[in-house]
């Protein structure tokens, strides 16, 4: 049975006010549930599905630091091995081993399937979006009622992956549950399900994200964190020159 109850944003706002939590703070807590800390190393799998099932997959490993810096390297498949991607704010480079040269990308260039570079490389909402509470809803993703806060996210800079997002957040834990992503034009582009939680180094985070295209409805991309560990990487390494050095 699907049950959805819309609550008054005013009532919800009062409830959150009573807890002393602003929408921006909710977003910070959501981000805290998407990674184990401000700087970390990771290994993740990306799978791209089409009408006939799994079409392509890749395994990447790398580091993320602060709100807007990440470095990642393809480990699999064989024909992508050694390619590396750097993302600093809106600036993105890819390093191709054959050429030994960083090549600048634009943020619209996709990584694989429905996953944009921003989907994979940028895992902090607070850097890219302003936030307000737009309502509440009880979802039942696993057959049991799950009270959620609905957040309206609006891009605060042009380089954000989406123009705006609607984000459902579990009220009691601040885990993201699902999202709808819109282009700058307002057109709905993708839906995202944050479908699995896993513990890394004693902290439970969202480990699996399913991104569905709303135009090509057979297509979806699954991003899954396989490993995550606290790791401090100097900010000075997030440069195109370091792509050559990254092991």
């Amino acid at each position, binding site marked *: 049975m699907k049950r959805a109850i819309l609550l008054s944003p005013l009532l919800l706002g009062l409830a959150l006010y009573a807890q002393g939590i602003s929408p921006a703070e909710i977003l910070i807590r959501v981000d805290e549930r998407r990674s184990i800390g401000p700087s970390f190393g990771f290994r993740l799998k990306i799978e791209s599905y089409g009408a006939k099932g799994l079409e392509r997959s890749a395994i990447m490993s790398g580091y993320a630091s602060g709100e807007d810096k990440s470095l990642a390297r393809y480990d699999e498949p064989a024909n992508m091995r050694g390619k590396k991607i750097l993302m600093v704010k809106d600036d993105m480079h890819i390093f191709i081993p054959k050429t030994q040269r960083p090549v600048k990308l634009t943020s619209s260039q996709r990584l694989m399937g429905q996953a944009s570079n921003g989907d994979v490389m940028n895992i902090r909402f607070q850097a890219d979006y302003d936030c307000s509470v737009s309502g509440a809803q009880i979802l039942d993703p696993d057959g049991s009622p799950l009270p959620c806060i609905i957040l309206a996210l609006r891009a605060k800079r042009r380089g954000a992956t989406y123009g705006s997002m609607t984000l459902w957040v579990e009220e009691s834990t601040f885990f993201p549950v699902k999202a709808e992503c819109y282009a700058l034009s307002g057109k709905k582009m993708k839906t995202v399900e944050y479908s699995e939680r896993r513990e890394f180094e004693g902290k439970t985070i969202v480990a699996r994200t399913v991104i569905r295209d709303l135009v090509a409805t057979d297509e979806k991309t699954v991003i899954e964190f396989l490993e995550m560990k606290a790791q401090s990487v100097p900010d000075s390494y997030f440069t195109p*020159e370091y792509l050559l050095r990254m092991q």
Partner: protein
Amino acid sequence: MNAERHAAVFLAAVLAASTSVAAEISFGKLNIDASLASRQALYELDSALNPSNILELESGYLGNVAYSIGLDFSEAWLRLKLQDFGLASADLDPEIRNRVAECLLGLESGPFFLDLGKRKIAQSRCFFMTPIDFAIAEDQALFRDDRYDLRFAEGKWMASMELFTTLGFFGAAYIPRIEFEGDAAKYFSSPQEERLLFRFSRYLGAAEIGLAFSYSNAVEAGAQTSFAIGDRAELHAEAVYREAAREDEPALELGIGATINLPALSAIVEYYYDGAGLGRDAWDERIEGCRAAAALGAPDSLGAALMSLRPDGRDLCCRHYAMLRLSNPSTETLSASLTTIVNLQDLSGRLMPCLSCDGWDSLRAKLSFAYPFGGDFGEFRLLGEAWKIALEIELWL
């Protein structure tokens, strides 16, 4: 072309498949990789002025087999790397050439890196010509040559230091003069000039900026920048001043370009200016020499006239060039691209369409075609093949 030739072309196109095999094995921190690639290209020469025709080569194959062997050992503070490659050609001048592309001992301490040995340094963000890359082989340019896939850029022997700081990236290198001759040059390493090289780069707001300074008998200094424009475009530019570019005259070299990514189409457009290249009058004068030599029908005179077009062996002779590359988004399974390079002085150029199928994890197939345009006395017709088609298959194990 007569029917017999059509048949030969068709048969050759079918047979022009090539395979390349690459393997990578890891033993803990030691990686070993090896690859073998062959590219059998079909070409036609119909210009009497083509230097290949002077060598009495007729239409047919250009056959190359290339191999590479790599060893890479990495520890937290130590890196040992060897990359060796070779090319065997079986057409014009059958021979095997081997080069050590990279061979270095790398030491790391925090943000400080020291490399001793042979390595490549690439700083440019341009795709077509890369003027700011003072210490790397010219064939590193990405789209200039359709033979690119079988060309391995060779590094230089050097002592190189790099430092990553919050102020930016600093690099310094000393490249000694080494005169490899005979078999050493043919099978081991190319000769190199003494050079001092300093590099700096950092982000300035949203823009990436870079500076390079080099001294090798004369000063070379360059600056570059690149930045995003919205989420669908980026702009890159670099300028280099050479104190003694050609015939010891100072010259400016400039590259400026943009990448634009639309949902179904990606475009790279670049303009390249070489102040040391031949201007319109000088070029026309030399072309007249070629015409006169062709009218005489004397191969020696013709060869000398052609040599006068690029006395210092540069790949490009003139001052103004443009490159345009159109492609579908690069992550699509089947990608098509159309690259064209144009000499803006004589409007000759090379058109290079390419189809690439990248839908498998361990296999890639690529069909490429190159066609020079601009008439028999255009730069690209004079100094290259008439047309060429090649099919490549790459396999990873």
